[in-house]
């Protein structure tokens, strides 16, 4: 459960602008994307990373194992944690990522948005929702 004091730790940059065309920016990296397979959000990021990196493997954040990282350069932890009820009310869900700090010390990891913050909470990282 997320601590109450973290509930408004939110960040964004703002203002509408027309979508920009993608460029050929491509990284020679192999990515493990731990998200929510089967959702449009994760599918969109799988496509994006497929276009801009050497390889992407999508796994469920709730089931990712250290062995999944073998042969890959970066772990990305991402997903959607906010849901809305019929009246538009926001609710938070958190998905536990079953990896510990010792398993990831020194391995490149990118923590995206609220799901990244939930994982940072579990690891007690300084990029967490706590104190945020």
């Amino acid at each position: 459960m997320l601590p109450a004091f973290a509930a408004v730790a939110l960040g964004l940059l703002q203002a509408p602008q027309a979508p920009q065309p993608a460029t050929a920016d491509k990284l020679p990296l192999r990515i493990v994307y731990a998200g929510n397979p089967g959702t449009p959000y994760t599918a969109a990021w799988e496509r994006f990373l497929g276009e801009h990196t050497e390889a992407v493997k999508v796994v469920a954040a709730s089931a990712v194992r250290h062995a999944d990282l073998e042969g890959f350069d970066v772990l990305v932890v991402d997903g959607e944690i906010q849901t809305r009820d019929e009246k538009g009310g926001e609710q938070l869900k958190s998905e536990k990522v079953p990896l510990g700090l010792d398993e990831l010390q020194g391995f490149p990891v990118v923590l995206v948005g609220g799901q990244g913050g939930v994982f940072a909470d579990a690891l007690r990282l300084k990029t967490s929702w706590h104190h945020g």
Partner: protein
Amino acid sequence: MLRPDHEIFRRPFPVAFRTEDTPTPKNFKDWKSTVGDTVPTFRVFDAFDETKDEWGLVTDDAGFEEAPDAERILGGINHKGPDYAAIARHGSFVMFGFHARPERLTDEGRRLYLNSLAYAVAHKGAIVETLRLRPNGASLLDTLTIFAPRLPANQRAASVARRFVGEEIPATVLENVDAARAWFAARAPFLHPADDGSNWDTRLQLTVDAECRQLGAANGSPAFLDEIATRLEADPEDPLAHTLLARYVRGVAPADFADWLARNRAQTYFTETGGWTWRVKGARATSPVLRATATGTPAAVNDPVKVSVEATDSTLTVTLEIRQGWHAYSPKAKDGQPVRIAILAGSAFEAAGDADWGADENGTLADFAEIRLPIRRIARGDALRVAVSYVACDEKTCRPRATVTLER
């Protein structure tokens, strides 16, 4: 907060952003009155719809400046304050707090995202040295000067009491921000957490360390280390030095302290967020969270109980997350097989008393059950192996006892 010269904006893809002057959000000014009327921004995503889109995440500055393992890189318009970071690094972990579908990325945002991946790879091998475990002094100062003043007068004392314990807060401190700063400044050198952090009701509270004040040196200052060394040189059994050494320079015996200080002086730093302790650069953080091992009698797939265990130096906290409709038992129960907790051989700790089961009087554990067992150190190091066994029951039946073994 924007560090335009940071390499994350340059490598491998130049991020050709042009900043706009965005009106400063009111909450930024509430947080820091010195912020100007506008803040420089650039767009990472093309739009944000509050009714549909998921918010991103920012994190505060706790622990970033005090230790060499982390950095804040970029802020963002947010509901908190101007110093909160949306992009930051801790060891080999890079936080990209912005959140939307990738087709919404601007050109600058796309390159910034890709550069964040590359920046994480550039820090392969970088170690997390300290964690965000305890409240820092700045959190108390923020409460005194930012949060409490926003509250009705009759609620301010309670707000401060969540962050400080040990003496009554003068009315002037609650009424006047300058008085609050002066009050804080007089105590800041000697602040210390009031407990070990295992109690949710008191874990954010700081207090004045009377023994540190008696020593006469701020616990986070190099003079503190020198004063301890001086006292031990004069009297190797100096009780004040022994007490403060155990509290602030953990794992270093009094007899070894002079050598330790001579060897590490240039590499030491004090971390509040990481546990109000002196550390040596390059040492890995010890996670308070124990990890499940493959040993024991593993819980069945779809088991109604999830076990997690954390430890401080003085408390082992076992949390049972029990699915609705199911329960387990504490030793208070007249009937039913109770949960058992055992600290296994090879651990640097042992049980130091009876567990607080926090259960109902009938001994039923349900929902989130938190069990706290006092522990004490019996050996050097942080090794800790724990076995938690339980019998999960619903209204009709009980499952066979399962045992989960966790360690660090």
